[in-house]
């Protein structure tokens, strides 16, 4: 939970920095640390979306199969 809180704080901080700071970049400094930290934050969010997407697909597939069964059932009874 500690790391989750840290990542959320990081996310808010980066978002805040994005909107308030404009300046030149320091390309000669290693960008790896920023990428590493950012990846943790965005992957947490993307992981959540991914889970929702998977559940949504399952729900759609479930109702899809129920509806097709009903349709087939209807056709058979004709």
């Amino acid at each position: 939970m500690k790391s989750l809180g840290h990542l959320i704080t990081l996310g808010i901080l980066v978002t805040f920095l994005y909107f308030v700071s404009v300046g030149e970049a320091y390309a000669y400094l290693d960008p790896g640390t920023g990428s590493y930290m950012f990846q943790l934050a965005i992957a947490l969010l993307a992981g959540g979306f991914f889970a929702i997407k998977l559940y949504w697909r399952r729900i759609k597939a479930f109702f899809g199969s129920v509806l097709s069964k009903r349709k087939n059932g209807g056709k058979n009874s004709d």
Partner: protein
Amino acid sequence: MSFQKEKMVGKTVTSRRIPSSFRDPSGFLFFREGSIYRQVNTVYKEDYDRLMSCGLYEALVDTRVLIPHQEVDVESVKSDEAYKVIEPEPVPCISYPYEWCFSQLKDAALATLKIQKISLDHGMSLKDCSAYNIQFRKGRPLFIDTLSFEKYREGEPWVAYRQFCQHFLAPLALMSCKDIRLNQLLRVHIDGVPLDLASSLLPFRTRFVFSLLSHIHLHAKSQKYYAGKTVDTSTHRMAHRSFLGLIDSLESAVKKLTWEPQGTEWAEYYKDTSYSPNALRHKRELASELLDRVNAKIVWDLGANVGMFSRIAAGKGIATVSFDIDPAAVEKNYLECVRRGETNILPLVFDLTNPSPNIGWENQERMSLLERGPADTVLALALIHHLAIANNLPLERIASFLGRICSSLIIEFVPKSDSQVERLLSTREDIFPEYTQEAFESEFGRYFSIQSSVRIRDSERTLYLMRKRET
């Protein structure tokens, strides 16, 4: 333009390392007597064995996204570090991301992500996803670095995330949202487009596209914020589901980026040309006959536009590289290759007046156009007037250059009286008194012997077949 070019030109070569293969401690590529091999170093033994035994290698080769190889008993260049030597299947034509059109780079990006997803299913992960690890073979993107896989360790983030954003997402976003020509930034920045640069160049509206806001704009801000700071990475973990979510998010970001090839001068060339249907038909017949006469194995079609004449060569089973300066023409050519499932054409974006140089460490990591030659045959159709008149290149220099990149030349001379040349001269002073058919034959005759010349019906143009003179 081949890893095996030394074999083709018949040189005898002893073992030597390929200059571009030095960054990865896992192994390296080397030539030995005309063939290319990859040494697997002992340090990579565990991951190599895992790749071959866990089913991942078969899965990727079956999906046609990884280059197949064979383990061979060949002496290595540095045998004290060698675990195994493998011989990958040859790649006929080497190309680089700054020579690809939009859809080639996009397909390369999606192939990389597909490989990463299959790898994760097998408990492995890509440790390197440089765009240079992709080559186009048989019309489709193929991952060529067999040593880029490592064991996936639960909790660890994706070590190649930044590289993917720099090599694929940033240039694709710039090409799609700003200007198609910005893929040329890859020629300057060999490790991909720096994200702060991409962020500053992208239009403001891209900040309202979540995938670009996150993977490029906020990512760049984070890089800047943490620059020079030390972070204890041992306290952070990334769940497997988050890893999958990240790949899914990148895949969705890439898929959403689109570009319509239209409106450029050359992509509409055949709709707005001086050829009558009869002339075009005759030119196609002549080109086909001449290609049969030279019995080419590799053709470079210079100024290929959307590949009409490249397709004649490719239809004969000839490996054809279809060069054009116009990204829209190359895009249309590539999409046609994909649509028709063509395997012998490689369309590339190329400015012949400023061809790809040697770049990278010691100017040896990425080969120049000349280094990738020579081709058996060059097609230079409706090209000479653009070089001589639009670019002020003397005929002698054009002949000399073409003599360096091919042994047979099928070239079309377009005289000043042709409507296309008249159009070129309408906006510039005619400072080209030397541009005559006699001078053309004389200058080219210094480097080539003229085998045949045929006037194209219903036109002012002449098609020549020339053979390079022995020096």
